[in-house]
């Protein structure tokens, strides 16, 4: 009995001042993921990795859009999206006060346009993904024939590429002969 009273008196106040003062967090604690819509290349790796499907990608073909969406109500702050993103476009912050008055406020979306095939005009990939690949190709020597060919291929859809490819058999044969 007296031990307990003594303990209570010596310990003092165990509660913290939060929410009237900021809560002290451990440096690596995991909070709200922040999406950098400009850096994102719309590859969809995060949506594939997300365990609770908080991150989803929706295709909106009539409006030529690819919609990236996160639902903070479903997020479990595991950080798999951060782990798999190839361009660091999504990163976990330490923000944890995510309560909102309306469910819709938990959603955050980013809308990206789709690229149309240079030959058949069908949509086949997000424009930003194609831009990203083009910028990668730009870092190579521009007079290289293979780089030029890859850039041409990027601008057409997979189906047109197959058709173009079969027409290019002659070209490929010549390349092989030259290498040999």
């Amino acid at each position, binding site marked *: 009995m007296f*031990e307990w009273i003594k*303990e*209570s008196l010596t310990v003092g106040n*165990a509660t913290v001042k939060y929410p009237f003062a900021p809560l002290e967090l451990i440096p690596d604690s*995991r909070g709200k993921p922040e999406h950098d819509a400009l850096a994102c290349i719309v590859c969809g790796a995060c949506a594939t990795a997300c*365990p609770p499907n908080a991150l989803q990608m929706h295709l909106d073909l009539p409006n030529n859009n690819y919609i990236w969406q996160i639902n903070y109500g479903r997020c*479990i702050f*595991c*950080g798999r999206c951060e782990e798999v993103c190839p361009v660091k476009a999504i990163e976990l912050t330490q923000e944890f006060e995510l309560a909102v008055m309306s469910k819709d406020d938990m959603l955050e979306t980013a809308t990206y346009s789709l690229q149309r095939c240079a030959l058949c005009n069908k949509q086949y990939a997000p424009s930003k993904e194609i831009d990203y690949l083009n910028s990668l190709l730009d870092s190579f020597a521009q007079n290289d024939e293979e780089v030029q060919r890859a850039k041409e291929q990027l601008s057409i859809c997979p189906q047109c590429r197959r058709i173009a490819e079969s027409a290019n058999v002659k070209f490929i044969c010549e390349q092989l002969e030259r290498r040999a």
Partner: protein
Amino acid sequence: MDTQISDSKLVGADAGMASLGDAQAAQRSEVRSAMTRQSDVQAAAFQYGMQPEAFQYGMQPAAAPKDACASFNEAGNVGESHIFALRQKYPSAVLAVSRQSHDQLTVTVKREFLPESVEFLYYVRGGWLSVVVGNDERPITGNYSVNYVLSMEEADKCFIIVRTEVDADTLEFPSVTPKVPACVWGERELRDMFGLRPIGLPDERRLVLPDDWPNDLYPLRKDSMDYRYRPPMTTQTENYEFVHDDQGKETTVVPIGPMHITSDEPGHFRLFVEGEDIIDADYRLFYVHRGMEKVAESRLNYDNVTFLTDRICGICGYAHSVAYATSVENALGIQVPERAQIIRALCLEVERLHSHLLNIGLVCHFCGFDTGFYQFFRVRETSMELAELLTGSRKTYGLNLIGGVRRDVLGEQGKAIKSAIVKLRKDTQVLIDALIATPNFAGRTAGVGILDRKVARDYSPVGPTVRGSGYARDTRADHPFVGYKHLKVEARSYPGCDIQSRALVRIDEFFDSLDMIEQLLDIAAVGPVLTTDFNYQPHQYAIGFTEAPRGEDVHYSMLGDNQKLYRWRCKAATYSNWPVLRAMLKGNTIADAPLIVGSIDPCYSCTDRVTVVDVKKRSQKTVAYDQLERYCATRKHSPLKG
């Protein structure tokens, strides 16, 4: 130890045996001599390492000399002695044997020999039932299968899965429950989930499915339903029959729950009382069935399931996550980096710290000693900070992937952990000393909620519940997994069989955990924490196991051919502990009931309302949480009046 072996004609040969574990060597000498002669003949047969499919020798009639197996061999494989003994006892029962990992074997037996085989391994060979797994294997073998996972804990410690196939047309197999009572919940669940019929099962009530579920819809059959399907309700009334044995006395029923302020989890208890004394009790659970197994098999890929397993329990989720990850790793023979294994053990022990402090606090609370409850919760905060430090989340969430862990422990974190451990040890010791010296604590807990040793042996409870009845069974000591193989783990036990013993076990384990964390930090090897050097192979299976704070968690995973699990069965520790509760409640008073339920440390979920039943007036009234809160604060205008 086993007369069946020593009487056999194989006895007499010896020598040539590889070095044995020193501790059990003496008691196993007879078995060993029987095994040894065979070892030379079969040396080649056992060089299979971790390749499960390479061990299907049982199907070949020409493989007769391979029947008897060496207990220990160069690959470190164990468990053959049990198969040998089973073949000796029932020569025609065993159809096939396959190995999943160095300490896991599956023995497929003839259907009619199933009860005898399980009984023999359970009672004669020192087995305890971990889990019963049903599997719809019709697309693979054409039949269903039932798997009884036994943890062999006397000689030659290992896991043995006794498997038998059940015909897809008759759906019948002989029930094991009359011989091994521990199987009762598992077989009731087989009826619910697969529609299999254990012939001779004494209790055929539903276990998992609610009363309003259609009779002919079996959720886990592969061809039954989509995981999002919600069938229309078939009835509006509860028709679950609560059983009791009045022992010739006139009893009154006291219902508790499904939502009740003292039961901490949605569960419905019926106490059959005479005056204050509980004559018998029955209960039903699964009010919060979440269908996780179905979701995992239908929607999630292998890595994603580790994050789902975190959410099985609000307290010991990490233990489930490790059990699941190791089950897949065992199935594929993945060598997880040493450092990852140490980190897993570290986090498991941190989880044990906060879980045990929670339960010790709750025991105070149930004794009506709320000062102690608040003091333990104050100290517990340090362990939550430890979890945050290690994983970035206060609840050790999201750390595992198949093949390792996602975060390393950095040098300065190690120092911070060590200083937190010192603080925890000091703070908790003060409280524990004061608690033990509090006369009310002993008065309320000693001799209350007795779990008889025989009942414990029959029903295979786990964790502090069984260790409080004098059985020192602890997965960390019996089957060292992840980082525990580097430690000397001693299973704690107390012989009192009462609530006090269970609390004392938890107190001891708490301090053991502190020591273990310090040791694990010291021995952590430098190196990678995650491996991706493996490929998924369809239909491989194995079990994974951990010692959660409440006892043994066991996960059974069979891989599929579509980047999803074919079958996943997870068994939480408390699943094994519920069936013995009936025996623990009998003979105590109503006032002790919450304390007894709390002493098995069932997994808690939030209760948000309370139903008050007036037995005299035969009326009941449900009070919403906000009404209750308002009344607690103001003590005016009771919600029960008017």
